């Protein structure tokens, strides 16, 4: 890789939303490292820890169905924090941010729809190991561990 030495352009310019990379002078920008202030990293790490504690606390509080949604919500927030600060998405091009949150949205939609669906048909599910299924499984897959649920 060849490059002429020059001072790296300020980070803000990189995130400025220009249509073209070519507006910047040649050369790699040091995007990783000392540019994120240590305090920011420490604060983010603390936030992650606090969120983890909240998840655990919620787990011990019995609030039924909402548990899972709160836990998933916190997981999304944590993933976003990691991406934004540890992975420098916060200072990256806006397109990457759009893509990232677009994906989060799709994943949330997918999960939301599937969870809505499974909770709707849960009453149809046969409790315990459906005996007929167990028998077939024993035949088709002799090593399948179905015995324990047999009533």
């Amino acid at each position, binding site marked *: 890789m060849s490059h002429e030495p020059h001072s790296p352009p300020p980070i803000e310019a990189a995130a400025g939303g220009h249509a073209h990379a070519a507006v910047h002078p040649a050369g790699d920008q040091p995007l990783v490292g000392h540019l994120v202030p240590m305090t920011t990293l420490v604060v983010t790490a603390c936030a992650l820890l606090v969120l983890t504690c909240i998840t655990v606390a919620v787990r011990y509080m019995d609030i039924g169905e909402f548990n899972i949604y709160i836990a998933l919500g916190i997981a999304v927030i944590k993933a976003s924090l990691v991406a934004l600060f540890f992975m420098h998405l916060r200072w990256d091009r806006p397109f990457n941010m759009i893509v990232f949150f677009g994906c989060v949205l799709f994943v949330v939609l997918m999960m939301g729809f599937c969870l809505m669906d499974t909770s709707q048909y849960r009453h*149809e*599910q*046969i409790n315990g190991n*459906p005996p*007929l*299924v167990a028998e*077939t499984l*024993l035949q*088709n897959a*002799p090593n399948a561990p179905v015995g324990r649920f047999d009533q």
Partner: protein
Amino acid sequence: MIQMINTLSTALLAAQDAVTPATFWMPEGASTVSADVDWAFMFVTWVSYFFFALIVGLMIVFVIRYRHRKGERFRTDGMTHHGPLEALWIIIPLLISIAIFFFGFKGYLDLAQPPKNTFDIEVVAKKWQWSFTYPNGAISTNMDGLFVPAGKPVRLIMRSYDVLHAFFVPNFRVKRDVVPGRRVALWFQCDFPTGEDASKAYNFFCAEYCGTGHSNMGGKVYVLGETEFAEWMAKQANWIEDIPDDQLYQIAGPKLYAQCSQCHTLDGSTGQGPSWKGIMDRISAGTGKFTNGQSYADIIGPGKVYETPEDYIRDSILNPGRYIVQTFTNVMPTFKGQMNERKIDAVIGLMKHLDQFDSKGKLLSGTAAK
């Protein structure tokens, strides 16, 4: 909105007093929901006719009118965009879509919500057979057909034994996948009896791909009048008990064999399972091998796994996976719960007296009734 559509479609649909006849698109419609589904189908179809004619018509006209010949200068007076026109063909399809959605939704509400007072039939699907258990304990399979009372909402409570299956009656416009591990319900109501005439009865199919026998996993739906149905159900529940003991295998044997005939032949040719021809001789000779290396002689006999050949056959019907005859694979489902002792006796009787039956399992004339 739903109210409006309700009134609209009630006005459009005259009360039904006969099955709707088959059309170019749809087969005869015989259930209480079929007319509604057909109406929605035809509505969408007419919308499709219109837009198809519009687009293809314009396309043909333009292609003829604006043909280009080599060397001519290009005309450039065509417009490149037109906001209101674009808006128009966003809004019109949108409105039509909303209307279609509501017609479909309304029909689906009927399909998805069974009325309160349904007549329930327990259905079990397995590779590649349906069995129907009626409230009085009567059982029929897809070989016999499904029998339902006319004029009553019927609910099928379905379970699957192995993989996904789907119960589909085209004439009733109903379909539902049977998911293993779940109890799923499907309901319909047919007001017009067909009687026990197979040519008038409706077809049902397995619509979810389930392997080898998928395309033959269907049968007939017979719709009977109320009293006829009650009689049929009573007869069906007790048919095996009503047969005198000395004729048990002769009468019940062929009927039961129909369930086995997909895999076990009587003429010696190989099917999914071993042929029954000479089965008792093979067992008494004791030489036939199993996949685990043992032979008949190793497991049948006093003090062995099975005291008698009959014990072995009984267990093969109830626990088919235990011993697999060599060169065959473990595909037979268990008949536990479907075959009582009397039925098993009848099957064993058939095996012992194969000379009295033809290769299709029909009793040869002259041997009937001693």
